[in-house]
């Protein structure tokens, strides 16, 4: 059972409280700090009176406990089965060659039991030795906070070399790619791991320039709830910070925050909903949609005709130079 008190925030909090009480009698202040750090906003209203009022007979009034050993619990079968399942995932080798042996454990799921059907097929080469090596170097740099010297191939096929301070590793399930988020480099703040040729610790002096977080942009979209569009659109854009307002029985306004760097991707995602969504703001985004539609009209698209393909003017096709691929 996934929903069990064995995994609850309350059990974890009490385990931490008892661990502290075994070491020395626990002060109320310390008790409250542990609750605030480990449990939820209102938990202090429940855990403290339950322990101090002896409803949970684990902590004495003087802050001591009858327990003699630090509270621990073996892994449940469910936890072991999940670990076994992820040990079968190719991406585990990015982290380690020595995953804990779980020989007598059945996996909770295998590759036959689920299928991600819309993932892009040009994902990173997770089983490639050089890729694994680069990944591990980057992870070590993140753990120990040191700069890296990186050589990569740009989308244009040129080799670039630079020094960066790694900030985090970003993974996209859709692209099936890792990107390194960095600071301290004018060339690029986001580096596709798949483009890295070599990566090693940078031993020279390195000063990190404070980077400014990009200001999010707000996209406003009016949607018409036909063909279940309301649910489809809201689920599709669920991962953005967003707000929905009902305009009338059939129309809604969706406002979401987006990163300007992802604008082209967002344009095509909006287009996928056809006439059931209309971008109302910002005007620059509206114009991007309009330009695509104007060019589509100029394509002279024809449905269900088998004769020759109409020629496009160079102007039409060259106008869209912005890559729909991910950033380098």
């Amino acid at each position, binding site marked *: 059972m996934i929903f069990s*008190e064995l995994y609850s925030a*309350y059990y974890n909090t009490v385990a931490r409280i008892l661990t502290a009480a075994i070491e020395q009698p626990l002060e109320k202040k310390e008790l409250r700090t542990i609750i605030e750090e480990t449990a939820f906003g209102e938990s202090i209203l429940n855990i403290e009176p339950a322990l101090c009022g002896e409803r949970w007979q684990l902590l004495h009034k003087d802050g001591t406990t009858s327990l003699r050993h630090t509270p621990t619990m073996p892994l449940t079968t469910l936890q072991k089965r999940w670990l076994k399942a992820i040990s079968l995932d190719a991406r585990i080798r990015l982290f380690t060659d020595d995953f804990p042996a*779980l020989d007598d454990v059945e996996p909770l799921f295998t590759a036959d039991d*689920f*299928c991600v059907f*819309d993932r892009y097929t040009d994902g990173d080469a997770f089983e490639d030795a050089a890729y694994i090596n680069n990944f591990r170097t980057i992870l070590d740099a993140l753990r120990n906070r040191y700069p890296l010297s990186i050589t990569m191939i740009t989308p244009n096929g040129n080799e670039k070399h630079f020094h960066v301070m790694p900030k985090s590793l970003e993974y996209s399930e859709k692209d099936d790619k890792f*990107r390194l988020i960095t600071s301290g480099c004018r060339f690029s703040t986001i580096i596709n791991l798949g483009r890295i040729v070599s990566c090693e610790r940078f031993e020279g002096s390195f000063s990190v320039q404070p980077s400014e977080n990009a200001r999010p942009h707000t996209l406003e979209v009016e949607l018409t709830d036909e063909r279940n569009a309301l649910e489809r659109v809201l*689920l599709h854009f669920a991962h953005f910070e967003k707000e929905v307002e009902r305009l009338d029985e059939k129309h809604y306004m969706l406002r979401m925050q987006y990163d300007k760097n992802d604008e082209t991707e967002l344009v095509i995602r909006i287009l996928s909903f056809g006439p059931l969504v209309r971008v109302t703001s910002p005007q620059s985004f509206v114009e991007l949609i309009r330009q695509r539609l104007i060019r589509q009209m100029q394509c002279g698209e024809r*449905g269900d*005709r088998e004769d020759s393909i109409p020629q496009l003017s160079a102007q039409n096709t060259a106008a869209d130079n912005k890559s729909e691929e991910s950033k380098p």
Partner: protein
Amino acid sequence: MAYSELVKNFNKIRDYMREFYVYGFRSREEFTKKSARSYDDERRRMESWLGDYMRFRQTADGKNVFLSIDSRVSRHNPFYKAWKTKSFTDGDITLHFILFDILHDTEISMTLSEITECMDDYLCDFAKPKMFDESTVRKKLKEYVEEGILLSEKQGKTVFYRRAQQTPLCDADVLDFFSEVAPCGVVGSYLLDKQDCRSDRFSFKHHYITGAMDSEILCSLFQAMQEKRFVTLEIAHRAHAHITESRVAPLRVMMSVQNGRQYLMAYTRRYRRMISTRLDNILSVKTGEVCADFDAHRQRLDEMMPHMWGVSTQSLSGEHLEQVSFTIRYADDERHIPKRLEREKRCGTIEQIDANTCRFTAEVYDAAELIPWMRTFLCRITEYSFSNPALQKRFTEDIQAMYRLYGIEEGGCT
């Protein structure tokens, strides 16, 4: 019953979380048709668990509460917190910690009577000591043996209990990553809770977190698949607001990383065909008997998959398979476009017509599933064709409607 931060039944909170996160435009009055108190309790719980993400908006219809989460920033799925709120009794928690203190080492092996007797030593110093009878302790021991955290051994007629071997925990980075990307990732979050430090070295783009709410359903389906068993599903049909039961052989869960939906592909003996059911519509899963033909059904699904764009295994037209094709043109400096087509084509095929033109073709059960994706190529489509005339008409009319929506008339601009 007095308000409690903890809950007994996850399904109720599951509905509210989805409502506040995915939609978030309904006012309190719309929720309180059934019970105002229930709404107030669930809203208060969510504020306690997910307060950082709660937002409020005052409208003419009343105050709206919603959850707004940028999953690219949050790093850990906030909804996992909801899975850590199971209620329990005062006796449950007291017994739990004392029991594992008594059985603190895997070498210690004790009978029920010995454990029960030992417990009194832990409790006697309290003003009103709890007394656990043997039947209560036996029930808890049995529950923990089933969970795999205790082992029972019979010696003659006597049963001995001891704690299970400790499995070494893996690296926090492994748990951090897989708890976000692997199915049933909440289990990884439970494992992370056992570690003192969190790594926070990973962030996630295009990260759909709603599936977390369906973790129990997904887990039950995986367990049934591993044992090749039938399941009885209780399914909510939200449009018609009714619930049905369906007995099926669960074969595979289809997951989308482009909208976060998860579907169960299953064989239904009643209708003798494959069906797909959204996991967020499944209210409960009851595991039944072993399905003797499980492997044959799964093989049949494997054979069907080269004609499935998404999860549909039949078309509205009634045709066995539908054909769809479209042609795109791109400039010399737009080599990323055919690359994009290639990486996104799934079961389709691509034919290079000339240096700047290629054609996509697919034969699928339901060509309607391709329409949203085809629209992402608008501005380059020079030809398209559906064998289903209704889809041909819809695609054409939708493009015309989009032109009108943005004030574009023949000639290219207004």
